[in-house]
């Protein structure tokens, strides 16, 4: 639904995402704000924002793979791990960090295609199972052969004269990558590739009948989705200066899937909403856990366990509430909000 008074007079108008000058203003203000963020926030907040940014990049990949193309993947964290360790190992043998980052993402895309090969024959839940198997198999391979058991150290990232060893500096790197990758993701969804993905998701028989090579596009979805994952993993390793298997377990893969669902399946904004929301919930659970723990009888299992269990509790509750009451996610709710805003009487003045 368009704002009041705006009409489409050409096909270009119809296809545009930013349709009015006011929307351009919003976009520019948002970008300026994002770039100026370090100026008025502290180190803790910036660290959180860096994590959120990296999460969004990974979530964009999973959104394209699972949200748009319908290939539900519960192994996304494993592909991030591939990116992280490839970047770290290549960096350790002397390759420039940024080159290693891209190579890491490409290797992750390749591994993604390999584990996406079953998608030609198996669908839905069976594919989910094969991605779970992928999670464990990749984990094993990295621990066994790529120094996953001890981790790999990455020295602080350097651009030109600057050393990005603190959250404020690293934020600019993450933000830049995020903006580029969001643009690419949105572009893909607006063109034939994105449409092919959705066609495969909605009805793969009809998609075949429309001349879409469904198997090829499923593999492409894996490649693209895992490229994003690998990129995110490499960035994370660069941030904490260490590639470790700890952040890339099955539990993390499930968190990412929750991000896609809570954010809104099949939307780009959903990756943003979901990441911010889920990361926010996790942070909140870490913050209030000790506080709640103090209120409970000291020494009881309840008080001890609260820190460990609160994230799980939040996760489960949020996920099930969203599935029952808001199945189309936050992005959908946002669209409804915008639409009711546009229908509000003062739009007609």
């Amino acid at each position, binding site marked *: 639904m368009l704002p009041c008074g705006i009409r489409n007079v050409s096909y270009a108008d119809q296809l545009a995402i930013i349709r009015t000058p006011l929307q351009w203003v919003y976009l520019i203000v948002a970008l300026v704000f994002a770039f100026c963020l370090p100026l008025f926030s502290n180190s803790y907040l910036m660290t959180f924002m860096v994590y959120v940014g990296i999460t969004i990049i990974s979530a964009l990949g999973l959104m394209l793979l699972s949200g748009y193309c319908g290939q*539900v993947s519960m192994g996304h964290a494993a592909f991030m791990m591939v990116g992280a360790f490839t970047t770290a190992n290549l960096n350790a043998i002397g390759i420039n960090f940024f080159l290693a980052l891209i190579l890491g993402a490409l290797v992750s895309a390749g591994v993604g295609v390999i584990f996406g*090969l*079953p998608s030609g*024959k*198996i669908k*839905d*839940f*069976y594919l*989910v*199972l*094969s991605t*779970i*198997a*992928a999670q*464990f*198999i990749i984990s*094993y391979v990295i*621990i*066994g*052969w790529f120094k996953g*058991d001890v981790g790999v150290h990455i020295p602080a990232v350097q651009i030109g004269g600057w050393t990005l060893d603190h959250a404020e500096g690293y934020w600019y790197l993450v933000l830049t990558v995020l903006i580029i990758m969001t643009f690419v993701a949105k572009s893909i969804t607006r063109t034939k590739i994105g449409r092919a993905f959705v066609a495969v998701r909605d009805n793969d*028989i009809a998609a075949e009948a429309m001349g879409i090579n469904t198997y090829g596009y499923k593999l492409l979805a894996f490649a693209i989705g895992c490229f994003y994952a690998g990129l995110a993993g490499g960035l994370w390793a660069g941030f904490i200066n260490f590639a470790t298997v700890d952040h890339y377990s*099955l539990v993390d893969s*499930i968190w990412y*899937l*929750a991000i896609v*669902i809570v954010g809104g399946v099949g939307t780009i904004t959903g990756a943003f909403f979901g990441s911010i929301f889920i990361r926010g919930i996790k942070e909140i659970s870490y913050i209030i856990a000790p506080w709640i723990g103090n209120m409970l009888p000291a020494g009881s*299992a*309840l008080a*001890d*366990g*609260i820190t*460990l*269990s*609160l994230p*799980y*509790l939040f*996760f*489960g*509750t949020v*996920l*099930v509430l969203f*599935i*029952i009451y808001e*199945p189309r996610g936050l992005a959908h709710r946002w669209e409804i909000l915008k639409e009711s805003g546009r229908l509000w009487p003062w739009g007609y003045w």
Partner: protein
Amino acid sequence: METQITQLLTYIIPGISKGLVYALIALGFVVIYKCTGIFNLALGEMMVVGGYVLYYFAVQLGLSVWIALILAVITVVIIGVITNRLFIRPLIGQAPMTMVISTLALGAIIIASIILLWGSQTLYVPKLFPDGGITIMGSVLQWNYLGFGLVSLVILVGLLLFFRYSRFGLSMMAISEDQQSAQALGISVKNIIQMAWILGFVTAAIGGMMLTSLTSVQYGQSVMGLIGIAVAILGGLQSLGGVIIGGLIIGLIQGLVSGYLDPYMPGSLQDVSAYIVMMIILLFRPHGFFGWERIERV
């Protein structure tokens, strides 16, 4: 030659024993899938809940192990009813993937509750059967494992008879095909799903209780649920009896791998081997040994 066979047996026998554990857990998965079409990813958590509830009655309340077992089963039934109301019933009629995600959420909440109630350390429960066992060629097959196998078989046969001879049998298969059509036929989808859910939950939980008494209980064990799912796939998701074959195969493979390959390979190939088997089956024969093959009609 004798020592080689003895060595082989030391890997095979625990493998078979483990396989039986897996089979019982997988049975919980197959029961729920066969009757409701729901892929229950909270399988491992269901199993672990059984162990913890048994711990509560057997250790925290100090009752005798067998009485604790019975009380634990009753408690699990109640947990099954509650979880069904909260996580499954509101989603009846929606896309299957939604239910799968809901079971994920359920799993997380079960883990959270377990940590809050019992903490994160490993807990022990007295064994159900006396120690000792039969000795085969120098290797001991413990009474506990045998008893476990027996209990599993009894449950399996009971379930098979139940599905074949009770009116629930057909209704349940109808629901697994299409929930909305079954509702249109006057089948009380809600009740049957609840029944199947509880049956599956209890089966998996009993598996957990047996496992706990054999070894220990700790919420990290819930990852065995995934191996249980692999076993169910191997046997065929529509086949109750298939879980035995699946369980034995995976248990055996794990046993052999841990004995013959693990010493030479980095990391623990034993755990991963179950997933590799699952991948192979998914690639070449997704319906498993005894499942039904589906042909898509255009």
